[in-house]
C-alpha cells in the first residue's frame, strides 16, 4: 500500500470501483450460524406464539382505543390526569401501543423466524457503459439534427426569447400580493389630535386615560392611543381602527410610559436637532414599545435602572437617556413620543414620533418627513 500515486497523474478512470487491498487478505464471509429457533422446534413454536401474542395485544389496544374514543369526554376535562386530558392521553397511549406492538411483533418475526441467510449482491458502477453512452449521444445528435435547432438560429432565438418573456407574467401576477409600502412605515396613529381633543394616552387593555399623578416613580404602564377606541373624538373614521387596521395600528403605536426622578433624565436631541426638554411631564417619559431590532414588543422593566429589556433578543434601552441602546443587538435608540398634559390633567401626545418606529428598513432615513 506504499505505492501511492499522485491523483492528477495516475488517477484511476472515473467511475471505476475501488480495490481495497489491505495488508491482511479478506477471510471471506463468516459461516452462517444457526439460531435456536432454527434448530429447536420448541423454541420455534414459542417464538411463533410470541409474535401472535404481540399482534393480539395490539388488537386489544385498538379495541381499547375505540372504547376510549366513545366513552371519554373531550373539552373541559382536559386537565384530568396530570394536565394531559383523559381522552387525549387514553387515545394516545392505546393508539401508540397498538402501533408499536405490531411493529415489535413484525420485527420479532423477522429476527426469529424469517430466513437469516445473508445474500451477496454485486454492485455495478453508477456510470453507464461506453456503448450506452455512445448510443445516447448518437440519439441526441440525431434528434437535434432532425429538429434543425442548430441550423435555424432564427427559430431557436425567437423561441428562447418568447419563452424567457413568459417569466414576466409569472412575476407580474404576484404584484397584487400587497400594496406598495409608500409612507406607511414612517407614521403611526399618534399625533396631537384635534384642537378640542389632544390625543390621549390610555392604558392598554382597559383603555382609561392616565393622570400624571397616577404614576409613582419607577412605574411602567403599557399604553395605546385613545384614537383606537374613540376614533370619532379625533376625527378619524371608525373603520380605520377596526379588525386588521386595529392590529396594524397597535403594532406600531404601542407605547410604554415610565416615571423616573426628573433629575435622572439626560437631555437629548430630537431628530430635527431641537431639544427634547419639553417631551416629558414631571419625569414621565413615553417611548415606543416596539424594539428597533426586529420588532418585538419590549416588556421587561429594570425598575432601579430605568432600563427596558426586549425578551426576544435582550436589547436593552436606557429610557433616561433618549432610549439609547446600552446592551444587545439593536442598532438604534427607541423612538420617544413627546407628551404633555391636557386641561383635565391627562397625559396626551404632542405629536407623532419624529422617526419611524420598529425595525430598520433600507430606505428608512431616505424619506423627508
Amino acid at each position, binding site marked *: *500500500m506504499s505505492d501511492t500515486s*499522485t491523483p*492528477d497523474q495516475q*488517477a*484511476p478512470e*472515473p467511475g471505476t*470501483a475501488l480495490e*481495497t487491498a*489491505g495488508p491482511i487478505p*479478506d*477471510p471471506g*464471509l*463468516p459461516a452462517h450460524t444457526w439460531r435456536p429457533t432454527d434448530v429447536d422446534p420448541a423454541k420455534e413454536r414459542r417464538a411463533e406464539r410470541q409474535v401472535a401474542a404481540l399482534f393480539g395485544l395490539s388488537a386489544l389496544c385498538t379495541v381499547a382505543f375505540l372504547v376510549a*374514543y366513545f366513552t371519554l369526554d373531550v373539552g*373541559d376535562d*382536559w386537565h384530568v390526569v396530570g394536565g*394531559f386530558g383523559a*381522552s387525549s392521553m*387514553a*387515545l*394516545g*397511549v392505546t*393508539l*401508540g*401501543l397498538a402501533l*408499536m406492538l405490531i*411493529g*415489535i411483533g*413484525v420485527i420479532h418475526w*423477522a429476527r426469529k423466524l*424469517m430466513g437469516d441467510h445473508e445474500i451477496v*449482491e*454485486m*454492485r455495478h458502477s*453508477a456510470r453507464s457503459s461506453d456503448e450506452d453512452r455512445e448510443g445516447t449521444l448518437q440519439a441526441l445528435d440525431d434528434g437535434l439534427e432532425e429538429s434543425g435547432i442548430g441550423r435555424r438560429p432564427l427559430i431557436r432565438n425567437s423561441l428562447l426569447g418568447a419563452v424567457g418573456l413568459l417569466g414576466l407574467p409569472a412575476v407580474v401576477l404576484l404584484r397584487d*400580493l*400587497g400594496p*406598495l*409600502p409608500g409612507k406607511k412605515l414612517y407614521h403611526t396613529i399618534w399625533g396631537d389630535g384635534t384642537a378640542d381633543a389632544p390625543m390621549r394616552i390610555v392604558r392598554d387593555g382597559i383603555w382609561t386615560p392616565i393622570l400624571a399623578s397616577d404614576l409613582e416613580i419607577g412605574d411602567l404602564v403599557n399604553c395605546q392611543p385613545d384614537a383606537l377606541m374613540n376614533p370619532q373624538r379625533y376625527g378619524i373614521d371608525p373603520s380605520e381602527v377596526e*379588525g*386588521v387596521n386595529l392590529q396594524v395600528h397597535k*403594532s*406600531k403605536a404601542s407605547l410604554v410610559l415610565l416615571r423616573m426622578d426628573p433629575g435622572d433624565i439626560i437631555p437629548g436631541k430630537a431628530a430635527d436637532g431641537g431639544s427634547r426638554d419639553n417631551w416629558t411631564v414631571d419625569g414621565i417619559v413615553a417611548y415606543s*414599545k416596539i424594539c428597533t431590532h*426586529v*420588532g*418585538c*414588543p419590549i*416588556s*421587561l422593566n429594570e425598575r432601579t435602572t430605568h432600563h427596558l429589556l426586549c*425578551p*426576544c*433578543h435582550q436589547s436593552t434601552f436606557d429610557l433616561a437617556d433618549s432610549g439609547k*441602546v446600552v446592551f*444587545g*443587538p439593536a*442598532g438604534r435608540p427607541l423612538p420617544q413620543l413627546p407628551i404633555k398634559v391636557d386641561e383635565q390633567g391627562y397625559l396626551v401626545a404632542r405629536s407623532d414620533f419624529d422617526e419611524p418606529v420598529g425595525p430598520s428598513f*433600507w430606505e428608512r*432615513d*431616505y424619506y423627508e418627513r
Partner: protein
Amino acid sequence: MSVDVSKVAKTNGTEPATTSGAPKAAGAIANWADERLGLGTAMKKNLRKVFPDHWSFMLGEIALWSFVVLLLTGVFLTLWFDPSMTEVQYNGSYDPLRGVHMSSAMASTLDISFDVRGGLLMRQMHHWAAMIFIASMMIHMLRVYLTGAFRKPRELNWVIGTLLLLLGTIEGFTGYSLPDDLLSGTGVRAADGFMKASPVVGSYMSFFLFGGEFPGDSIIPRFYAMHILLIPGILLALVAAHMLLLVYHKHTQWPGPGRTEENVVGYPMLPVYMAKAGGFFFIVFGTIALMGGLFSINPVWKLGPYDPSKVTAGSQPDWYMGWPDGLLRIIPPWETHIWGITVSWNIMLPILVAPPLMLMVLMVLPFLEAWITGDKREHHLLQRPRNAPTRTGIMAGLMTFYGLAWAAGGNDIIAIKMHLSINQITYFMRGAVIIGPIIAFFIARRWCISLQRHDEGKLLHGYESGVLVRSPDGGYAEKHLPLPEADAYRLTARDADPTPESVDEIEESGHQVGRRRIRARLQALFFADNVQNPTAEEIEEASHHAEHELHELESQIAAGPNRHGPTED
C-alpha cells in the same frame, strides 16, 4: 397476441384446464397486472434487493417514517383547521379564553385541541413528528458525513439531503406559525423584521408577503398554502428522488470479512428488510403517538391569541430555529446609515447570511473534499470517523458552532437557571462561536489520530487481555493476545491516504501550476499525521515478536508466583 402457454393444461383431457383456488386467483391477478404494467421485470430485480444492516442506517429511516406520520396527522388537522385571520369570539370548551376575540385560525386550533376527539392528540403528534423529522434528518446527515457515505457516486444525494433539511425547517416554521397564538405571532413579527432588513427590497417584500402592513390578514392563509401544498409537494418529490438514488446506488456498507467495494451483503428486501423496515414504521408511528398522548407540546391556549402589543418572557422559536436566533442575540449592534440608506448588519448577518451560508457549506463539503483529496473513485465501503481525521474535525467544528449558537439562543434561560449575568454570557458567546469551533476542530482531529494509533497498536501488538503478570524480578507486564483474523481484517480494510504531489514535480510539469500547488498543500494538511495501515511484513514481524513475548510471559506464569489453578505437585 401470443398464447400464454402457462395456462394450458399439461394433462390434456384428465383434468380441467381452468385454474381454480386462491393461489391461482392471485396468480391470475399478477398476470393481469404484469400484462399491463410489466411489473415482472422490475420486481425480479428488486424483490430480493440486498440491504446491509447496521444500527446507524436506521436514522434516515426515522426521518422517512416521521415524514409519513406528518402527512397522515397533517391531513387530519386540515379537516378542522380554518386558516383565516377573520376575528371571531371564542366560544369553545376552554373556559379561560371563552369570550376572547381571536383569529379563526387560533379559535379553530383551540377547537381541535378541546372539542374534537383525538384532535389534541393529532396536533401534538404532528408537532412531535415535525421535531423528530428534523432532528433525525440532522443526525442522519452527521452519520452520512462522518462515515464518508457522501463520496462518489452519492454526492448528489447529499445535496438533495441538505435541501430536504432546508425545506423541513421552512415547513416547520410555517407550520408552527399557523395557530396565530402569542408565541408564534411574535415569531412571525420577528420574521417581518428580518424581511424588512433585506437590502433594497425589504419593505416591499414585507408588504407583499403580509398583503400590506404587518400583521395584515393574509399571512396565515399564505403560510397555510405553503405549508400544506407547496413545500410538502417539493419535499415529497425530493424524498422520492433521495430513495430512488439510494436504490440505484445500493446502500453503503461497513467493511468486514466478505464485504468489499464490489458487493453488498445483507438481508433481502423480501421478506427480512421489508419486515424490519415496515415494522420500524409502526414503532416510529407508535412512539410518536405515545409522545402525542403523554407529552404536552406547544400548548397555545396558555398564552392566548396573538396581540401585537404583547409578548412573553422567554420567547423562543422551535429548537431547530434556535441557532440563527442565538446569532441574532449575540451580534453586536451594527447598523450603517449612509446616503440615506440603512444597512442592518445586526439582522442581515445572523439571519439572511448565516443560515444560507451554513447550507452552502454543507452542500459543497463533498465536492471540496473530493477536490482536495483528488479522489475520483467510487466508494461503497464506509469509513470510520477516526480514519478521516480532518473530515471529522471539520464536522466537529461545524457542530460546535451550531451548538454554541443554539445555546446563545437560550441565553436568557441559561442566565436565569444558572444565576449568571446575561451580558457576560452574551460577551462570552460572541468570542466562543468563533474560537470554539477552531478548538473543537483540532481536538477532534488529534483525537482521531490517537484512535488510529490505538488501532495500529492493537494490530501490531494484539489487544489487552487484562491479565497482569509479575516477573521474577518484580516487574509487571500485561499479557497481549493477537486480534482475531476478522477483527484485524476489519481494521485494515481501508485505503491508504495519497501522498501529495511534490512542489518540484508540479513546477517541472508546468501544467496548472498554481492550482496544483494549492491542492498539494491542502492535501498535505488534510492527511497530515494520519496513521497508515502497517504493511503485511510489519504485521508479520510484530506477530512474531508478540508470540515470542507471549511465550516468555507464559513461561514466567508457569514458573513464577502467578500460577493459577491446582498445583501440579
